[in-house]
C-alpha cells in the first residue's frame, strides 16, 4: 500500500513547528510516532499536503511529577510510560494500559500525544485520561491552553485541538488516598485493538463508600467517552460487586457500539456490562490495597 503524495518537514524546535502549522493551516498534519497515522495514509483515509515530523523537537517526551499533577510529554512513547515506576505506583491503570498497546515495536515508537490527538475510538489512552479527569495542554504560535479531556473528543478522529496547535502535554491529577484504578481490555488476540476497553478509578471514603468514580470507555461509540451516568450512580454507594454490576448496565446504556469484525453490537453491549464490572472490581480491590 502506497500513501498519497505529501511534503515532509522536520522542524528543529517547537516554535518552528508552530510557525509552519500557522502558515500552512489546514494543510499540515503532525507526525509523531507514526503508528496510527501511517496506516491511515496508506489506506488514503488521510491525505494531508504536508507532514510535520516532531522527532527533532526536544523537550516533549518527559514525564514529570509536580506538586499539582503528573505531566506526560506528548511525545512520550508508550514504552517510556510503561517503564515509569513512579507513575505506575500511583496510577496502576497506566501500566495496565501501556502494556496492552500493540506490541513492543509499536510501544517503542507510538506516543501518548499522538494517540490522543489521533482520537481513534479504539485507542486505549483516551479512556484513561477521561476516567482520571485529566487534561491536554495544547500550544500554538499564539499561546497555550489547557483542555479538559471531558469535551476534548468530538467525533471519530476529531478533537478540540485547533489545526495550528500541537498537543504538548497530558496532565493527570495525583491519586487521592484510598484510590484504586484499572484498565481492562477485551481483545480478540494479544495486542489487538480493543473490542471493549474500560478505564475505572474509584476513591473510597473511610467507611468504604465510593467518594468519587471515573469510568472511561474505549471502542463502543464514535468517540471514547466517560460513562457519566454510571459514575454518578456509584457515588455514595458501598463498593461491592452488586453495585459494580449495576454500574456496568448503566454504562452500557450510554454506549453506542456498531457491529463490525470485533462482533455484533449486542455482544459488545454485553461486554461493556461485564468488562465495566470487572474493571471496577479490580479498581476497588486496589483501593483496598488488596491487589
Amino acid at each position, binding site marked *: 500500500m502506497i500513501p498519497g*503524495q505529501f511534503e515532509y518537514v522536520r522542524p528543529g524546535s517547537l516554535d518552528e513547528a508552530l510557525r509552519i502549522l500557522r502558515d500552512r493551516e489546514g494543510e499540515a498534519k503532525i507526525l509523531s510516532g507514526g503508528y496510527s497515522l*501511517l496506516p491511515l495514509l*496508506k489506506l488514503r483515509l488521510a491525505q494531508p499536503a504536508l507532514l510535520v515530523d516532531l522527532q527533532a523537537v526536544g523537550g516533549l517526551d518527559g514525564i514529570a511529577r509536580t506538586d499539582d499533577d503528573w505531566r506526560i510529554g506528548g511525545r512520550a512513547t508508550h514504552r517510556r510510560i510503561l517503564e515509569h515506576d513512579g507513575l505506575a505506583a500511583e496510577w496502576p491503570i497506566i501500566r495496565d494500559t501501556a502494556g496492552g498497546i*500493540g506490541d*513492543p*515495536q*509499536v510501544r517503542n515508537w507510538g506516543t501518548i500525544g499522538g494517540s490522543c490527538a489521533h482520537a481513534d475510538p479504539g485507542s486505549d489512552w483516551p479512556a484513561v485520561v477521561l476516567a482520571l479527569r485529566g487534561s491536554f495542554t495544547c500550544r500554538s504560535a499564539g499561546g497555550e491552553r489547557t483542555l479538559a479531556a471531558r469535551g476534548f473528543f468530538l467525533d471519530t478522529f476529531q478533537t478540540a485541538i485547533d489545526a495550528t496547535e500541537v498537543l504538548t502535554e497530558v496532565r493527570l491529577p495525583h491519586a487521592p488516598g484510598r484510590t484504586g484504578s484499572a484498565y481492562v481490555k477485551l481483545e480478540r488476540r494479544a495486542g489487538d485493538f480493543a473490542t471493549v476497553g474500560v478505564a475505572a478509578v474509584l476513591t473510597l471514603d473511610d467507611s468504604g463508600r465510593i467518594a468519587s468514580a471515573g469510568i472511561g470507555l474505549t471502542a463502543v461509540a464514535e468517540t471514547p467517552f466517560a460513562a457519566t451516568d454510571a459514575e454518578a450512580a456509584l457515588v455514595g454507594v458501598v463498593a461491592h460487586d452488586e453495585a459494580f454490576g449495576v454500574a456496568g448496565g448503566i454504562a452500557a446504556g450510554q454506549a453506542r457500539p456498531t457491529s463490525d469484525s470485533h462482533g455484533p453490537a449486542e455482544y459488545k453491549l454485553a461486554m461493556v456490562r461485564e468488562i465495566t464490572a470487572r474493571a471496577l472490581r479490580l479498581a476497588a480491590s486496589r483501593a483496598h490495597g488488596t491487589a
Partner: protein
Amino acid sequence: MTTQHVSVTVNGAVREADVEPRLLLVHLLRDVFGLTGTHTGCDTSNCGACTVHVNGESAKSCTMLAVQANGASITTIEGMEQGGKLHPLQQAFWDQHGLQCGFCTPGMIMQSAWLLGTNPDPTDHDVREGIAGNLCRCTGYVNIVKAIQQAAAELRASEPEGAGAASA
C-alpha cells in the same frame, strides 16, 4: 513530485538516496538499497516481518517513512553476521529449527536481538511477550523460544560480568 535527500547508516555503511517523502523505509531498504533480507509481510504493522533497528530501537519498517529515518543508524538482518560467522541468534534459529518457511525469520531475529539487548536473561514468558509483534505461521513458536533462549545463554556467557546489553 519533488524528492528529498536521505542519508542513513545501514549496517555501518553510509548510504544515500533521493526519495519521495511517501516512500516507506522498508522499500528504501529493499528496492533502493537492494537489501532484500528485510521482508514485507502484511504491510499493516501487524506481522513484524519488516522489523529492523532504527537508532537501536526495533521498528516495523513498513510503518516508518524513509525520510523519518534520515540521519538514523539502521541495522538489518544483513548486518547481523560478523566476519563470516553467524550471529548467535542466527545460529540458534538454525540449531533449534526455529524456522520452517523462513519468511518471518529476519524480523523475528531482529526483534529477538532488540529483546536480548533490553533483557539479557528473559523468562520464556518474557520472550513470548517480546516477540508478540512478530507472527510465525509455521513453527508454533516453541522452537523460536528455544532458539532465543539458546542465543541468550550464549550471549550472556560471552559478556564480561556486569557489562553487556543493559546499555543498549
